[in-house]
């Protein structure tokens, strides 16, 4: 099975879990954003070139279900993925803890970026003080999900991620 098909399957599965499980299962009213998590992993594991495409595709898929205009999440995740990939280039020692910290920060920034760009693009209601709480909880949830999602993403990427783990 080729990498694009595996990635597509993982993204579809993440979307379905998001639309079914995390509609009800929320932590302090906040749900993890699995497609955003996949975008961060993609950038971390395979760098700024193809990682950006993974992040953009994940964002576009998530945009289809969000009330904000198409492209807001894709835009945000592409920027975050680029930042993650460039940051990762400067790291000499990778560890699970380091990955979890990167996921925590990048996921939180993705939430804030989505609110900021969505707010600029005609949805000012996204810009509210609550977004910091949401960003914090999403960051923590994603960091906790890292041990579960990381192997799945490495499988989807055909083992390329193992170079960085």
């Amino acid at each position, binding site marked *: 099975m080729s990498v694009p098909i595996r990635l597509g399957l993982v993204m*579809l599965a993440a*979307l*379905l*879990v*998001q*639309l*079914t*499980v*995390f*509609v*009800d*299962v929320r932590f302090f*009213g*906040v*749900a993890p*954003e699995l497609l955003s998590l996949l975008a961060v992993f993609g950038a971390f594991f395979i*760098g*700024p*070139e193809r990682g*950006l*495409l993974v992040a*953009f595709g994940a964002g*576009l*898929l*998530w945009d*289809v*279900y*969000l*009330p904000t*205009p*198409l*492209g*807001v999440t*894709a*835009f945000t995740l*592409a*920027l975050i993925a*680029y930042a993650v*990939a*460039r940051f*990762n*280039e*400067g*790291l*000499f*020692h*990778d560890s699970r803890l380091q990955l979890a910290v990167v996921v925590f920060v990048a996921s939180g920034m993705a*939430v804030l970026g*989505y*609110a900021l760009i*969505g707010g600029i*693009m*005609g949805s000012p*209601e*996204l810009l509210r003080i609550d*977004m910091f709480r*949401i960003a914090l909880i*999403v960051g923590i949830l994603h960091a906790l999900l890292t041990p579960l999602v990381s192997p799945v993403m490495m499988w989807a990427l055909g083992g390329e991620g193992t*170079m*960085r783990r």
Partner: protein
Amino acid sequence: MVLPQGGGSDRGRRRLVLLVLTAITLLSLDLSGFGPLGAAQRWVRDLLHPIAEVAGFVASPFANTWNAIFDYDDLAAERDQLREELDNALGAQLAAEAERAAFRRLLEATEITYLPTIPTVTATVVRTAVGNFDEHVITIDKGTNHGIRPGMAVVTGAGLVGRVERVDAITASVQLLSDANLVIGVRLAATDEVGLGHTLPDDVRTFVIDRGLEWPEGDDGSLLPALDSVVVTAASSRYPAEIPLGRITDVYLDPENDIAMIVEVELANDVRDLSYVTVLIASGVDQVPLEPTPSTSIPLDIEVPQDPESDR
């Protein structure tokens, strides 16, 4: 160990610029209502809907267990609230028997007259919010195949719930009344005055009419809307019919405007807990009703003084 990527950085930067430009193009097209883009999104949602239904069925035991464990306090509170409401209803019934005339008037005001004349579609709520910023959006299991179009009013037997926002072939998204950004034109049943209102961001059961209503001249309390009045949406607003909204709980002078009146309404519906809704298959005017502007023309019954210069 991280492998150096060398010249990949430039390619990555170029790719980032390309993707950002693509995203901005998509945003611009979507914001301008570019048809094929909307159709593509609808196609994806319609294609994935049956798969999501199956996945939802498979995941439902887990979600139900989660809700049973973590929402127990909410369920207990809801039970207590329902018990209290039942007691109140019994008390109201007794009071109504003592005041049959007033009760009959109230019935006339609350009777929903739009249902017999306007075709309706009953729908099941299949999903609440999917993201972390769209808590005022629900998804229902009816769409364009069932005659639903954007802008249609969504109601329950108690009254207005929201409006249809985005429609696919077999599903539709509904913007709930709890969204403080959803401005609604309303008419006060007691006085026939028309105003604009919205819910409060931190209290989704309270609807505030803060535009368009004037405080009665001479501070005549008898002209104020009776507190037991029912507010209905105005027929001239974006909704096609007069739909009950709630009961007035407070009327006061706008602290920022000495001549404006603010009316608080307790909504008839609790939109946070919906399982079924009804869509009115009738189109309203898809825009926020404008406040009446004073006429600048000279009334016919005013005599215009002759210009003395013109007689010369």
